């Protein structure tokens, strides 16, 4: 009985990972349209777009094998990271349920995006790739500080332990804010979409990708954004709802996670619709400032506040 329930949760989790992300993008597009007094496309629109791309052959700008392999590796990394998250109280594939492993695996999506972009001889791809690298370079320090705050607060880097032992302090509240900011930047939502900026660097690292390969990359990016949001929602809610000791409770938590994930997307979409893209130097500057603010938060955490 236990295992059947577990497998059930795993299956639901896997279904969510594969099916939900493009819908979330659909929601965002609808919300953005409404904010601009348009009707907006159907919720399925992102799926239609992906389907169309999957059916098109790709144009080949280089013979590099890395160019072809990168989208698949990126998608595989995104799915692996998403599989490491809790759905209810079940982790579909537990290969290391701790903060560092999760963030590194999700980082691999960006790594393969950059490598794919650098494998073609195209200045725009290269500019986009280096911008993506600079985003990583400035967001990782924030995440490094968050490891510190959470690990000190809960005494472990293991996410299950963190969820079980977290206690509410002012520094934790601030850490949540920094976490939200860091994840938003890492997802590359609008003011921070400098790497793929269509109008500026014609898609950046994605510039030379087309057809099926591009579809795979888009899918990977959607899943990555979903995984980061799901991680945030889990870390936000699960420590405060007490131990999950029955399947019913787990189902309830899963529902809560699902609803909150869907509910957060309109907020993100609203932020996206009301902001203009920053320049890369502004992004770098903001992130460096956040880093120093983060250090203060870390100090607060160690003083027990």
């Amino acid at each position, binding site marked *: 009985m236990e295992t059947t329930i577990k497998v059930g949760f795993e299956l639901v989790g896997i279904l969510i990972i594969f099916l939900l992300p493009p819908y979330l993008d659909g929601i965002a597009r609808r919300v953005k349209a409404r904010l601009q007094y348009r009707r907006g496309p159907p919720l399925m629109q992102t799926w239609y777009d992906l389907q169309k791309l*999957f059916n098109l*052959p*790709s*144009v*080949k700008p280089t013979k*590099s094998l890395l160019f*072809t392999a990168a989208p*698949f590796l990126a*998608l*595989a990394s995104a799915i*692996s990271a998403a599989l490491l998250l809790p759905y209810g109280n079940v982790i579909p*594939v*537990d*290969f*290391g*349920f*701790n903060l*560092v*492993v999760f963030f*590194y*695996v999700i*980082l*691999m999506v960006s*790594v393969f995006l950059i490598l794919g972009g*650098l494998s*073609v*001889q*195209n*200045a725009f791809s*290269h*500019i986009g*790739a*280096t911008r993506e*690298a*600079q985003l*990583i*370079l*400035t967001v*990782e*320090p924030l995440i*490094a*500080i968050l*490891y*510190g705050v959470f*690990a*000190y607060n809960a*005494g*472990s880097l293991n996410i299950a*332990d963190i969820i079980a032992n977290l206690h509410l302090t002012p520094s934790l509240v601030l850490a949540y804010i920094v976490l939200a900011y860091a994840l938003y930047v890492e997802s590359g939502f609008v003011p921070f979409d400098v790497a793929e900026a269509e109008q500026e660097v014609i898609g950046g690292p994605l510039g*030379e990708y087309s*057809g*099926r390969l591009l579809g*795979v990359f888009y899918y990977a990016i959607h899943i990555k954004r979903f995984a980061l949001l799901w991680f945030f929602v889990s870390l936000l809610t699960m420590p405060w709802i007490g131990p999950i000791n029955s399947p019913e409770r787990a189902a309830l938590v899963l529902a809560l996670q699902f609803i909150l994930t869907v509910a957060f997307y309109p907020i993100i979409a609203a932020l996206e619709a009301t902001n203009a893209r920053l320049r890369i*130097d502004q992004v*770098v*500057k903001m992130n*460096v400032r956040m880093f120093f603010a983060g*250090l203060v938060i*870390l100090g607060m955490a*160690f003083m027990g506040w």
Partner: protein
Amino acid sequence: MFLEYAIMAFIIGGVIGLVRDYRVSVKASSFMAFLGSLALLGEVYHVYTNGPEKFSLFGIPMNVSGLSNVFLLIIGIVGVAASLFAINYMELFEKTGKGWVYAIAYNTFLASMTLVVTVDSMEYFVMSWELMTLSSFILVFFSEKARDVNASVKYYITMHFLDTIPLFLALGTAYSLVGSFEKLTFENIHYHLLTAPESTKFVLYALLLVAFMTKAGIVPFQFWVAETYRAAPTSVSAVMAGAMEKVALYGLIALVWKTVGPNTTLGFIVALLGAITLTVGTLYALRETNAKRLLAYHSVGQMGYIWLGIGIGMALIPKGGALAAIGALGAFAGLFHALNHAIFKSSLFLSAGAVEYRTGTVELNELGGLGRRMKFTALAALFASLAISGVPPFNGFISKWLIYVAGYQSGNFILAFGAVLAAFISAATLASFIKFYGAQFGGEMKRYENVEEVPAGMLLGQWILAGLTLIIGVFPKIVVPILNEPFNAPLTENIYRIGFGSVLFSPVIFVILLGALAAALYLTFKPEFGKETKPWDCGSTEIDEDEYRTNAEGYYNWYEEKIGSFYRLGDWFYTVGAGVIHYITRAYLWMASYFTKIVDTPYTKVETLDDLREREIMNIDEEALKPLLRLLRIVKNVLPGMRLGTFVVLTLVVIGAVIGILIAL
């Protein structure tokens, strides 16, 4: 026994190099070095299965402990790969024509490092250490280009002042404690130190710490590293970065920690030094565009990680209880990272050497598009780059991650801050190696269209190491028992996972998952290509396709500008350091002025090192022996011209004189 074989192989390698032909000389000696390194690995296996051994090698007391074994493993792996690589690579320096210099210096270098980590006597430790410095110095100026010679002189002077002098003073202090050169074993010194006053301990800590910091390139003594590694032949840089720096780590653990004794404050200092070093080294590496200098600064940075780990151990192990467990984890992670760093850094140096072998340059701004031409080198460089950046499932991830775990869970602000910096710098390392890889192998360039892959021996050298980054990353169990012997960290580990307490990671499951997903996705969305085109360049017709890319300089200029004040501070320190070195050099020259004389223009003032190098000079010993030399030269010139008759007369005169003297007596 294997250790004897290794030393013998190194000796034969040195002697064999005396043959006249350059190619034969470097090839044969590199091959003997390869065999010697293999013997070292044999010794590692022997000690691992039979336990530590003490014996006497050619009269030198040896103690191959669990700790020595870790470092023998490092020297062995790096030696095997770099020597294999050198067999072909050293052809580049054929015009110097001095194969024998390389042969003797390279083999001595490997042999002396082996001795440093195995001898059981402070005296022999210092002697082997000096031999290591001297032989590496010779290798650094092997190319004989002016810039390289300058770098090597700077290296030697730095080592002399900050390494030799403190070590000899420490040797003297130890001697004054023990009172006999025969009994200067580490154990003995430790025993005598137990009753010694605190001030003696303090002196030893300070002296030894300075010596090992300098050799490891820890801030503020990192200034010699970049130019030295750039100047040395790349296969030698690989050994220097991979193995020589680790020897300094051995010194830190074996002498400072184990012999002088653990000290919590010192542990915090070491950890803090590590944290500062990893930040400074890596951020400086970020803006480098010379592949070898970039790698050199990363060695500085990665040594910082290792010192951070060891520092955590030193600080927390004396505290006992749960903290001691975390401390042991930190120390273990530091050692693990030392091995990993040796593997991926040597691999990266060898890749840079392969590129240099085919294109003649290591300047990243000029390179590009080699990925298609040198497929295997490119893949090896990619593996090692991902490993050093700490991307799972490569080996660098596991050791870095364990350092983070130890730092974050220590509950101490300094150590946690060190871990924050470590995790942050990991991203900087990634960015830097994206540049390293992208600038050399990314894109396609007409300029390098005819470049070919390097010979098989060089590829094998690279792939031994690049393969190990993945193998150790997926199955850390292979090396963990050897590495864990000195500190006995309470790891949770079995064949498919590794970790500490509840913080675990299963590289095997991860690799299977990632591989299966990637393969399944590939089969589902099998890439289908329509037409082949050139990359889109906005319809420009005038553009030079080779220039249609971001060159290495342009990668992170925004970021570098934003953290400019950091670089300015660092540069200021660098200026101060350079000033100090300048005055030390002047002091040397002042001393030298009493012992040398410039031959062609006797009253020239010696002001720079170049004066000594470029003019014909005469040392004081030459001057003293000059009459004799002159006589010998005359004899040499006159003798062949003499007729038999003259010779006979001269002989008769000499014999007559001798007989006359004898009679007179």
